[in-house]
Structure formats: C-alpha cells, structure tokens
C-alpha cells in the first residue's frame, strides 16, 4: 500500500547522507531561528533536470541585460525567442545580485506581471517561474517586490493547468511567510477559498503544494486570531482529514503537509471541538496504526516526518476530550493504539531519538484517564520496554515515570501487576540521580506503590533504597517527601 509513496521521502533521506555537515549547520541555524520565533522555510521548485546540474553556471545579470531580456520577452517577434529570453532571465534570477538589480529596475515587476497575464501560455509559465525564483529569495525585500502578482497567482489557482497551479502555489507559499503585510493582502484577495477549491484537485502534486501553502499560512504569528477561524469556517478541514485517511490512496508526501497543517491548527486551540466532530481523533488514531504497520517493513522512508505531527495532533486533541469520553472515542480504547505507539517508540529510538519525548507525551495523555489503556500496558507486557527507555535522558526518564504513576494511581489491582519485576532496580537507580524532577517523580511513584502494594516498601527497604534516598534529605524540593517515604517504609 505504501510502496510507491515511499520514493518521495526516501530521496530526501539519501540527500541527507551526503549533506550531513551542511545539514548540521542548518539545523543549528533553524534552532536559533525557532528560539527567536523566526522559524520560516521556503521551497524551491525547479523543473528541468539540466538546470540542476548547471546551477551556478548561470550568469549574474546586470541592469542592461535584465532590461534587454525583458524587452525581448515582451516584444520579440518570435515566440521561441521570447521564451528563451525569459529562461535566461530566470536563470540569472537564481543569484541574489540579479534579484536585487531586478527589483530596483523601474517597471521590471510590472513587465513581469504583464507577461504572467499575457495571452501566450508558455510565456506565462516562464514568467511564473521567474516570480518563483524571486519568491524564494533570502532577502525579504526581493520577495515583497512580488506583491503586485499575488491577485493573479490566486486567480490562476482556479485554472486547468496543474503544473502552473503547482508553481503558483509554491510561489504563494514562499511569499506567505515573508511578512504579515503579505498575508494581510492575501487574505482579502481570497486565498482561503482558493485553497479550498484547489484541495479538491485530482493531481497529487497540486495537493502537496496546497498542503505546503496552507502550512505556511498557518505558521503565521497572527494565525490563531486572523487565519485559523477562516480556515475552520471553510471546507478545508474535512478535505484535509480525508487526505490523511489511511488506505491505498494515502500519499505520504501529501499527508505530511496536511498533518503539519492540522498540528498548527490544533495547538492554537481555536475550535478543536469542530475537528473532533469531523472525526479527527479516529482518522489520526487509524493513521497511527497504519504508520506503525509500515515502519516495520520500510527502512529509511522518512516516516518520522509524518509520525511526529500525527502524534502531536492526537496528544493535544486528547486534552480536549472529556475524561469519561477518552475510551468511548472510537479507536482510543483500542489496545492496538498502545501497541502501535510502542512500535513507533522503538522506531524513533533507532531513527530519531529526539522524537521519543513526543511519543511518551502521547502515552501519558492516553493513559492519564484511561484504566483500559493502563490495563493494556500491563497485559501487553510493555512495562519492561518502557523502563528500558528511562536511562536515555532526564526528560525521557520523567515522562516514563509519569506514565508509570498514571498506572499506579489507579489502585491496588494495578500496583500488584507493577511490582515486583524490573521496576525495583529501575527505581533504585533513578532515586540516586541528581535531577530533582526525575527524583521527585520517582518519589511520587514510590509513595503510590507503598500505599497500594505494601510489599513494595519492604522490598525497597531490603535493597537499601532508604540509604539511596538519604542523599536528598537536604534538598528543599524533595526533603518532605523523602522523610514521608522513610517513615512509611520503616513504620508501615
């Protein structure tokens, strides 16, 4: 079912291998940008394969040359020559210097928009490619110079040429992230209804481009107030969920884009009840099952890129479901969800350990109020694999201990299944750590175990657990709980 879809993501993974060093630098830059709330990325769409090889070979164009090629494109006598002039211009526009010269040149953008709307389809296409190069510029000023073209780009989205629509969508997607001013123009110009009509396209490439443009729109700082309400009012959410429905038609490239869109919507908490009404929880849960199924058979397909937003969406949505409804919601009482999540945790551990906390966060949200899923965790023998993760990092440790507390606090029947077993050596270890949060969560778990399974206190005492606790007696945040536990262990 996933076979033909993997190719897209695998290709990305191959590129990564070669570009490891450059990637590390970019990763650091992205982290910095995120902390400064400036995390934006653009996509570059270039068509002809010969060009990729020649990239960099294209010359920087000066003012006179730009003028020459524009005039040729506008007034040449032969259509082929006009097209070629635009191709040369576009190749030149791959350079920032040419881009800057271009936007400074008076009337240049007007001429380009004129070509975009002229009556020669191939010239229109080349003009759109020029605009796309400009939209991808690293300089805001260059991309913002494309503003006069947006109403046309949006109008062309209702056309019939899927290539052209795809190009317009990626160009719009690049412009969207440039500034709030751009978005303030695109919204009244009708970008939301335009996307809502494009999302019904039969072309896969168009759908992926819609997902990209929409995800760019949703990342805007003002999205929760200005953009998400419009989107929730449109038909987009239902179509997005349809495109994430597992089954033979699911395309992972498209699903990745829309899963991120959904994440941006859900974590903004505008009207998540509406999404739940549209069946978001069951779609996401089924997709999680499907993903777990696929990662077992497929290597290096980049599926963590899809798993990550799916997990976030499910986890955040679960906080909005009433306690008594968690198990009632379709699929969420299903123990296969827990099985799938563990298979994905194992996948993350091998592929992208930095995503483990997100998976454990979902496990917390699933088990917090669900005796059914806590029972599944016990009956599927998942406590031991869970404990194996706890040594990875303090953050992972706290999350693992919290999930165990979720199970333990349900009472004696649960604690009887937790103790003894591998939990004792694990706790004997975590209480000796220096991280206050890890120790604190261990103390909470010990107290629940001592209360509901008194044997645990005896075992802990025999294994010199109390001496281990001794080292935290002076720590303000821990000392009360340490004393209380020692009391219980010694005097019952």
């Amino acid at each position: 079912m996933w076979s033909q879809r993997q190719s897209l993501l695998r290709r990305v993974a191959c590129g990564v291998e070669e570009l490891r060093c450059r990637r590390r630098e970019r990763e650091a830059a992205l982290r910095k940008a995120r902390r400064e709330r400036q995390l934006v990325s653009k996509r570059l769409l270039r068509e002809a394969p010969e060009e990729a090889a020649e990239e960099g070979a294209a010359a920087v164009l000066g003012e006179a040359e730009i003028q020459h090629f524009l005039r040729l494109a506008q007034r040449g006598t032969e259509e082929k020559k006009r097209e070629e002039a635009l191709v040369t211009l576009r190749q030149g526009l791959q350079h920032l210097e040419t881009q800057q010269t271009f936007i400074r040149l008076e009337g240049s953008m007007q001429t380009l928009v004129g070509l975009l709307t002229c009556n020669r389809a191939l010239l229109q296409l080349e003009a759109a490619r020029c605009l796309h190069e400009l939209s991808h510029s690293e300089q805001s000023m260059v991309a913002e110079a494309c503003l006069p073209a947006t109403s046309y780009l949006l109008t062309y989205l209702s056309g019939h040429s899927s290539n052209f629509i795809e190009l317009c969508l990626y160009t719009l997607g690049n412009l969207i992230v440039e500034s709030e001013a751009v978005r303030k123009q695109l919204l009244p110009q009708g970008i939301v209804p335009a996307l809502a009509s494009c999302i019904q396209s039969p072309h896969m490439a168009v759908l992926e481009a819609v997902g990209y443009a929409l995800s760019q729109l949703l990342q805007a700082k003002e999205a929760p107030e200005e953009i998400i309400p419009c989107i929730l009012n449109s038909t987009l959410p239902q179509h997005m969920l349809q495109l994430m429905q597992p089954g033979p038609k699911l395309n992972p490239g498209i699903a990745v884009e829309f899963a991120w869109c959904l994440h941006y919507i859900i974590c903004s908490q505008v009207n998540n009840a509406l999404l739940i009404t549209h069946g978001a929880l069951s779609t996401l849960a089924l997709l999680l099952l499907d993903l777990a199924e696929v990662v077992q058979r497929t290597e290096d397909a980049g599926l963590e890129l899809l798993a990550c937003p799916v997990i976030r969406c499910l986890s955040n949505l679960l906080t909005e479901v009433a306690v008594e409804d968690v198990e009632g919601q379709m699929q969420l009482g299903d123990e296969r969800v827990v099985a799938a999540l563990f298979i994905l945790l194992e996948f993350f551990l091998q592929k992208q350990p930095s995503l483990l906390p997100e998976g454990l966060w979902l496990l917390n949200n699933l088990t917090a109020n669900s005796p059914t899923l806590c029972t599944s965790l016990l009956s599927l023998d998942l406590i031991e694999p869970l404990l194996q993760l706890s040594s990875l990092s303090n953050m992972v440790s706290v999350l693992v201990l919290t999930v165990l507390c979720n199970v333990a606090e349900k009472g004696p029947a649960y604690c009887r299944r937790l103790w003894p077993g591998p939990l004792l050596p694990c706790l004997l270890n975590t209480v000796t750590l220096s991280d206050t949060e890890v120790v604190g969560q261990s103390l909470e778990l010990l107290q629940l175990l001592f209360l509901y399974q008194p044997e645990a206190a005896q075992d802990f005492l025999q294994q010199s657990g109390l001496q281990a606790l001794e080292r935290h007696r002076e720590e303000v945040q821990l000392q009360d709980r340490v004393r209380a536990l020692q009391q219980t262990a010694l005097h019952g």
Partner: protein
Amino acid sequence: MLLPSALRARLAGAPGAAEPLPVERSPAARAAPFGFVPRPVRFPREHEFFEDGDVQRHLYLQDVITQVAEAPEKSRVPEFTCQVAGCCQVFAALEDYQHHYHMMHGNACSLCSRAFPSEHLLDAHILEWHDSLFQVLAERQDMYQCLVEGCREKFKNTQDRKDHMVRLHLYPADFRFDKPKTSRGPSMPGAIADLSTRTLADDGDAMEVCPSPMTLSSAPVSEKRTYSHRVPSTICFGQGALRGFKSTKKKNKHH
C-alpha cells in the same frame, strides 16, 4: 528496547479494548507532601518541547530541492500544431502543448474565443457579454458579480465592482482579467458583431486601467494573423475539439 514478540501480532489483529482492572483510589494517595495527579498535558505551538520536531520539519521543507532535481525530461516530439480550430501554435514538447491547451482553451468563451484563467471568470464574462437578458436585468438590480471567487457581492456596474475589488479585496487597480468590451484593433471574425452591438451599453470601464508599458500593448503580432492584443490569439469555437486530451495526464514529477 525489546518489544514482546506478540506485540506486532497484536497490532495486526482485530480491534479490541482490554477489560480494565478495577480502579480503587485511596484518599491517602494525594496526602501532602505528595500530590501526583494524572493529567493529559497540552503543549502550545511555541513550546520548547516541540523544538526538535519543528527543526526536522523545516529541514525537510528546505530539502525539497533534492527531490525536484530528479524531474523527468520533457517528452520531445516532432513539432506539431495545436489542433483547436483557428489556433496555430506550434509545439515541440507535449508538456508545453498541454499547458497551452489548459491555459488557452480550458476556459475559453465559445462565442468570442477569449481565454479566461478560471471558470468563474468565464461564467461572469458569458453572463455580462453574451446574455441578452443581462443588460435588461442590470438596469433594475445589481447584476455584476464580484470577480473574486467565494465572494457573493453584486454591483450596479463594473466601476462599482472595481472599486469594491480594489478596496475590499486589495486587488491592483489595473487588474487585467476583466477586459474591456471595446476592441480597438481588428478583432476576430464572429466576435465583432457581438462586440459592436454591445459597445454602446459599455460604460467604458474595465479593470484594464493602464495601457502602461507593462500591459504589453505592443504584444507581438504573429506573422500569420493580426489580433488585437486584448483578444487571445487563440480561437476556440466550441471547446469540444480536444476534450479527450485532459486524460493524458503528465507524469507527476514528485512521485
């Protein structure tokens, strides 16, 4: 991480929920100094918990160039001419032809052969230009639909509509899709009669405000024909000619 071997079988098996063990909570569980309460946690978008995943997502976005590099070559074929009656465009690649066909003949008016970028604009054009009832009705009620898809506003005349589009939708004042009815150059046979009868009713408006340098007023004139720059050089009397073409879908370059 060692997963029990039965887990994979369980995932592949039928849906089913476990019979939950009995829940029995004691009030002592939350007695001070302890206070664990199980709770689902929500993270907002900017939370640092999401940093790693967000960075992965953006690396993926930026990597797209490596995918596109593998685009298939255009399918070169011997030069051929567009088959739509009256259109003489010549092509050397199927993709170019397909694009031309969609752009120039996809939403063309069968009465005057103008090409429109969308069905919405074509519908508005047919109504406003070729529907004899339209002018009669327009005198009594607002009939000019807003050209922005999804907007339901209607106006008394095109000037009001233009004002609305510029003010409310932030369209450029020289928006060029609503072409004027007056044709200054020689027009297409068949369309002339229609145009001339309507010229009087035309309030001289249109969005094409500026025949400035960028409107390509000196668009090239093909050797074979002379057209007004305002009229697409493609004629399409009846769109049926190539209907079947759309099914020859181009290979998707991403997949």
